[in-house]
């Protein structure tokens, strides 16, 4: 049987482009804005930022609790289903409830999401980044 090393080494990622990926099982949305090697730093329970190893620049992040954020959005009368929407709203919504020290991180990420035109579509599974296929049925991984 093929080893994991062989599988990965036989593949080569194509050229980097800013992207985001939603994991339904973890209900977490990951953004990659730059390809620098990074370390993660938790801002609060909902946000972890990725900082470049060499410069500490903000190069990505992981946002958790997406389903809850979508519900908040609906409570504000902003419910939209099956249409691509800008994802900066996640940072604005979560940032509203964040601590004073965390707010600047949320604002910086909202700007980056806008700059890179990060968009997604709200569905029954949570959120599908534009360009990402509808996640398969959660099957036995479902919460």
């Amino acid at each position, binding site marked *: *049987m*093929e*080893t*994991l*090393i062989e*599988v*990965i*080494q036989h*593949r*080569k*990622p*194509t*050229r*980097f*482009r*800013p*992207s985001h*990926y939603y*994991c339904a*099982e*973890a*209900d*977490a949305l*990951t953004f*990659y804005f*730059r*390809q*620098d*090697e*990074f*370390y*993660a*730093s*938790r801002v609060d*329970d*909902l946000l972890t930022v*990725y900082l470049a*190893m060499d410069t500490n620049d903000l190069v*990505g992040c*992981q946002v*958790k*609790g997406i389903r*809850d954020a979508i519900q908040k959005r609906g409570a504000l009368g902003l419910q939209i289903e099956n249409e691509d929407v800008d994802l900066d709203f996640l940072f604005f919504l979560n940032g509203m409830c964040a601590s004073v020290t965390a707010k600047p991180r949320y604002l910086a990420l909202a700007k980056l999401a806008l700059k890179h035109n990060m968009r997604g579509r709200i569905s029954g599974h949570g959120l599908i980044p534009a360009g*990402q*296929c509808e*996640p*398969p049925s959660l*099957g*036995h*991984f479902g*919460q």
Partner: protein
Amino acid sequence: LQLTLTGFAPYFSSTVSNQKGHETIMGFWPDCESKVEFYVSKDKIEHLERCGPEHVFYGILSAAEVLNAPLAVFEGLQREGQGQSLCYSGRPQQHRQGAVMPGRPGYVFLVFVTAKRLVYEWRWEKASVGNPDLPADYDSGRFSKLRWAYGNANRSDSTP
């Protein structure tokens, strides 16, 4: 809580099999004598292959090594639905496309796994100054408890 790394972590030989939408790798599970299967979403692997970052794509190799030979395993992430998720901490020696070198000084590699053994995140974080095998804020309440630690098998007391 005192942890020491007393020797070279054994080289891993994870195998992969195709299952519905997931790659399978073998790894260590606390309180289990034999290795168990972990799952990585094919969709996520393909996304990283298509868009990068390259170091996250190849980080799967480091994640597999940590799942096989962790230094510590925490249980319970402080958010809804993740109360039984696990976080593996380690210092892998596999980097990039399989290059073998010591782990980054001052950092640990964390691998996050749901209770159903779905691997959904892997990344470097700064290490604790007092316990360099653990993440810097391991005692901040982000985890419910330390489920297992190298040299303290079956330990399940609460994180201090």
